[in-house]
């Protein structure tokens, strides 16, 4: 018998970055198949290829034993593939019933959209899923759980053979998770094939029968879940060398610079307390969506928080006021440098001096001459490769752009630098250069709070790793004890495995 869905040696590159480099997946009907891997392992890209959102560069893709080549999401849908994305994708201004039937609303004999029929079918679908959602209410304002139910109802009404759930439980509470798992089992018993992506191993073990592990865009192993343990899966997920990374140089660790106490924002992070000392690199590790960036943004004052305090050198940093945080010596290198870190259509020189505009102005006018001095110094120190200092930031490579963002903050002589994903989208060679820069920075006595989704980077750079799981600190691992497995365990299992205080 042929398999329901088969992918072999699928590759996909975006620009210079290889998202998939030989991904395999075999799904059978009546099976719930777990797909696991670290952040950036290529799970989402694979899902998007199956769902028709991206085309593959090479490799085989068989559905019911026949080669298929989807040109659009509609195409994939016609072939019986339904994808439930991590972020529900409903139309907020349409009713629940309309959301389920968008693009294929039934008609009455007189050429009117048959609302009564849509309502009836929606009631039937939701009843089958064991919930009651008013078919006539707008989708706006529905809870995430209900939105997910609607996505599933949509998949059922499409009579999908393959249902892909991309981290469906990430935003759900306990009861809702149980319910979702019940629905998944129901679909399996009806003979559908389900791909279940999750970082929660307890759910994977409770629900799935097979597990495929991906790493660096490649297929690592596929096993029956009965044959593996959590530890084995974690080892497959992280097992790679950390050779090509620049390890942090020894630096004199000084006084406490940043002290965060009981920082809380309902539903985002809770009771977060930690300290960063001069010369220390502290890494916030954890899964995407665990709340790492949110904590950093709150510390810097971009986002609000409800209770707790942030102090620099003993001085309280006012809430929600980045200008005050900058005044006290904080700098923030954001995750998305194109959108948040740089003025893309301004020159390198302007970008570097953006945070010290008062120093480069004369009589209230910014002087290009005054800008040139510091810009020249920092561009040289950080070895920004650019033809001229007035080259627009948009023309630089990713690595050089990141150096410009770093230079901007270094020009302010910060006491604390928060760096969110320092090497995202940067090629391997420049990566180690960025690592060297951050390491030198710590060597000069700057306190560094770094967020990274790349475990080798975390392990190579951090003096201390703070692991965040679902908005809480679940691990505080010092440099001597840090292993990929320990970080992954704290990121996926939480508090029961708290390591060395």
């Amino acid at each position, binding site marked *: 018998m042929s398999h329901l869905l088969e992918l072999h040696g699928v590759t996909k590159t975006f620009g210079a970055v290889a998202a998939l480099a030989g991904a395999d997946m075999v799904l059978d009907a009546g099976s719930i198949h777990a797909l696991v891997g670290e952040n950036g392992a290529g799970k989402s890209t694979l899902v998007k290829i199956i769902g028709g959102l991206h085309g593959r560069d090479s490799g085989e893709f068989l559905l019911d034993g026949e080669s298929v080549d989807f040109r659009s999401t509609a195409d994939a849908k016609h072939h019986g593939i339904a994808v439930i994305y991590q972020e529900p994708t409903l139309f907020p*201004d349409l009713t629940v019933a309309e959301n389920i039937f*968008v693009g294929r609303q039934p008609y009455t004999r007189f050429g009117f959209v048959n609302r009564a029929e849509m309502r009836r079918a929606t009631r039937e679908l939701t009843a089958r899923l064991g919930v009651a959602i008013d078919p006539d209410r707008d989708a706006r304002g529905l809870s995430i759980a*209900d939105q997910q139910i609607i996505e599933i109802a949509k998949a059922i009404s499409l009579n999908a053979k393959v249902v892909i759930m991309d981290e469906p439980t990430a935003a759900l509470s306990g*009861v809702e998770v149980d319910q979702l798992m019940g629905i998944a089992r129901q679909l399996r018993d009806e003979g559908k094939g389900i791909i279940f992506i999750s970082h929660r191993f307890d759910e994977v073990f409770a629900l799935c029968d097979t597990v495929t592990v991906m790493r660096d865009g490649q297929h690592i192993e596929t096993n029956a879940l009965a044959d593996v343990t959590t530890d084995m899966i974690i080892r497959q997920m992280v097992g790679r060398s950390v050779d090509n990374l620049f390890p942090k140089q020894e630096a004199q660790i000084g006084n406490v610079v940043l002290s965060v106490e009981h920082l809380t924002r309902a539903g985002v992070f809770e009771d977060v307390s930690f300290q960063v000392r001069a010369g220390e690199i502290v890494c916030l590790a954890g899964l995407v969506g665990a709340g790492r960036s949110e904590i950093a943004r709150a510390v810097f004052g971009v986002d609000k928080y409800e209770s707790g305090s942030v102090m620099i050198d003993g001085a309280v940093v006012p809430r929600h006021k980045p200008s005050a945080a900058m005044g006290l010596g904080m700098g923030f290198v954001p995750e998305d440098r194109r959108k948040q870190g740089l003025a893309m259509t301004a020159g390198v020189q302007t970008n570097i001096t953006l945070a010290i505009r008062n120093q480069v102005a004369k009589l209230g006018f910014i002087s290009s001459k005054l800008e040139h001095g510091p810009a020249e110094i920092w561009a040289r120190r950080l070895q920004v490769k650019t033809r001229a200092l007035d080259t627009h930031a948009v023309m630089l490579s990713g690595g050089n752009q990141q150096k410009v963002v770093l230079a901007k903050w270094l020009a302010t002589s910060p006491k604390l630098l928060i760096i969110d994903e320092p090497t995202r989208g940067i090629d391997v060679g420049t990566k180690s250069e960025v690592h060297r820069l951050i390491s030198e920075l710590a060597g000069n006595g700057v306190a560094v709070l770094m967020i990274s989704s790349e475990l080798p980077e975390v392990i190579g750079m951090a003096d201390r790793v703070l692991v965040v799981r679902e908005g809480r600190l679940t691990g505080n691992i010092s440099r001597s004890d840090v292993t990929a497995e320990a970080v992954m365990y704290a990121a996926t299992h939480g508090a029961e495995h708290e390591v060395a205080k």
Partner: protein
Amino acid sequence: MTIRQIKGVATAAPRAPRQTVLSWIFQARELSLIVVIVGLITVTTLTQPQYLFSEGGLRDLLRTPTLYIALAVGQAIVMITRNIDLSMGSILGLTAYFCGNLFHEAPFLPIPVVILLTLVFGAVLGSVNGFLVAFLKVPALVITLGTLYAYRGISVLWIGGNFIRPEWVPTEFKQFALANVFGVSNLLIVALIVVLIAGWFMTSRRTGRDLYAIGSNPDAAVLYGLRTKWLTLIPFVISGTLAGLAGVVYVSIYATGDSKVGLGFELQAVAAAVVGGVAVSGGVGRIWGVALGAFFLATLTTALPVLSIPSLWQQAIVGVLIVGAITLDRVFFLIRQNQARKELSA
């Protein structure tokens, strides 16, 4: 199957547990517009009975809105998909002259054929906008700002110092605007037909519903596999056609016009749509609300002079209404969002 009752999950409860008076008014935008229109006409008529109770008065009251309604309905359909068509006024000017000129140059053509050709011309002009927006993915604001000037430029080149001469226009055609059926102005009937067809299309046809969907969440529309290019193009063709219809109506009413016809009408159409309940952010708005919005603005322009409010104030009042309508929308949106959040955490 049991019906679950857990935190954060909607059950078959009534739609909104606590409806404030304010949110009721918001949901019944059409009702409040009707009240305001009736009030405005009443006050104006009490001040100056001729406003309503004279042959010319009632006729004017019921025929001028047709222009606004045709434009506003077209604009609303574009805005519902989160785009905008700024070229409508220029298309109106170009098609009006096209229509008048056709009567002049080809007097042998039957009137319905001239009307049809004018509508097709409007559709072509609109589809140029739609094609550029849908396939080149340039923001509609930029494209239609460009065609606003381009189409007006063509008008100026083509018409020059010329104008539509009343003697070009067949008498039957001029009569059409003045005549009525059982006391209802012909032009009002045209407006009603436009509203009925557009309303049916937008609420009861698959394509119409999909237009709401694409405006409500364009990213989801892609993930969902909707034909987004096609759905982006259609509204511009409709708005171009309706601007062409407005051109025909213009010639029928005024039987004259130079290269400046329709100048600034596109913004009136946006204003009518917004006052009628269309959200600039897309996905929201009902056609009959838009028609009422257009009727209201048309009434206001005729009523204010009668109420001896200087014409200088008219534009300011329209402006305040637009800002007021958008601010109210936003306020109610925030109220509803707040309520939804409270329900979830309750």
